[in-house]
């Protein structure tokens, strides 16, 4: 009886070990492909994507990829994580060197299906509005006085998404020296950010 159970367990363990070894490479490659696709999606066509770099600023770690065209840095893809409604929300943000958003894509999302998870829908108004988002507009939701239209009934997800984009833009501005310094804002410190925008306008 015990022998039978042991044998079955051993056999199953062997099978699993084998399958694990077989799928180890494909899983790594699949994860890599997802990441590559999300980077390619947010950058202009025809650029060369560099190696991944990390930077710690404002108490946050960012992963980013610089994109070059004819030797000039033209854009950056920044992996930016914030907290949404259902946990961490990680998106890839493509930002041109002048601080304009090129495009965004979702890397991981645990938002509610049918509500916050709509941020994953390509070509939706929510996603389209970030394309070409420049410093002349305010990167937070209209409910808080910004220029981002939130997803219906999903303000928290929309805030998190906008914050992730804004963090990425701030990082790129910091890297290229466009803006005074990196400033990540949360819903609570909106005022601080408004003053930043004013400074930019004054320039």
């Amino acid at each position, binding site marked *: 009886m015990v022998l039978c159970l042991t044998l079955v367990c051993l056999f199953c363990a062997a099978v699993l070990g084998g399958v694990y070894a077989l799928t180890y490479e*494909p899983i790594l490659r699949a*994860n890599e492909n997802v990441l590559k696709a999300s980077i390619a999606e947010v950058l202009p066509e025809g650029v060369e994507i560099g190696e991944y770099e990390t930077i710690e600023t404002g108490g946050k770690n960012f992963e980013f990829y610089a994109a070059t065209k004819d030797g000039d840095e033209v854009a950056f893809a920044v992996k930016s994580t914030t907290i949404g409604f259902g946990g961490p929300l990680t998106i890839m943000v493509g930002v041109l060197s002048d601080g304009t958003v090129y495009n965004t894509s979702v890397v991981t999302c645990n938002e509610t299906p049918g*509500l916050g998870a709509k941020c994953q829908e390509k070509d939706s108004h929510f996603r389209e509005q970030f394309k070409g988002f420049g410093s002349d507009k305010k990167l937070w939701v209209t409910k808080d006085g910004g220029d981002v239209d939130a997803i219906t009934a999903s303000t928290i997800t929309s805030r998190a998404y906008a914050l992730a984009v804004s963090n990425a833009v701030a990082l790129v501005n910091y890297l290229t020296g466009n803006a005074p310094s990196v400033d990540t804002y949360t819903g609570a410190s909106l005022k601080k950010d408004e003053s930043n925008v004013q400074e930019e306008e004054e320039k």
Partner: protein
Amino acid sequence: MGKKLSLITDGFIKNNPTFVLVLGMCPTLATTTSAINGLEMGLATLFVLVLSNMAISLLAPIVPDKVHIPVYIVVIATFVTVLQLVMQAFTPGAYATLGLFIPLIVVNCIVLGRAEAFANKHNVWESALDGIGVGLGFTLSLTVIGLVREVLGSGAAFGWKFMPGDGVLAFVMAPGAFLVLGYLMVIFNKYLKKS
């Protein structure tokens, strides 16, 4: 031949795992936010069901009665883990959407239920056909529930949007799952179930 075919078609209506046997309610309610999600969950369960049915029909004669349940659970858990690894490698998107409910196929009563009620008394091929039948029945139910919720909740079908804007959001959320399943069961009872 007729008998073989009925092994498969029985799972659709007469022994429909969702509406008649009322088994595997957790994934039925949780993953049917859209038709595609329901379909993917159904197919994932089908995969485990067919393989575990076949393995168990082979193992049943040599496993002592006293430990048969633990052995079945180990076998099912093995196939579920295989499924997890394969999905991570080849369909990472679906794996991310279905999340927790892939490992939870282990405790889906349909799988253990078929092992106990059918696979340990029949040969490999019959067990495989039974697995396919019940699995397809489950897939069909999940797809239908997902479709109804998607149409009412998001104004779309299989991801194709036929209506601008949002539907009735409640249908995509938790209450809609219970409501749609309840009403579909009513319709099933009234028109399809042969008493």
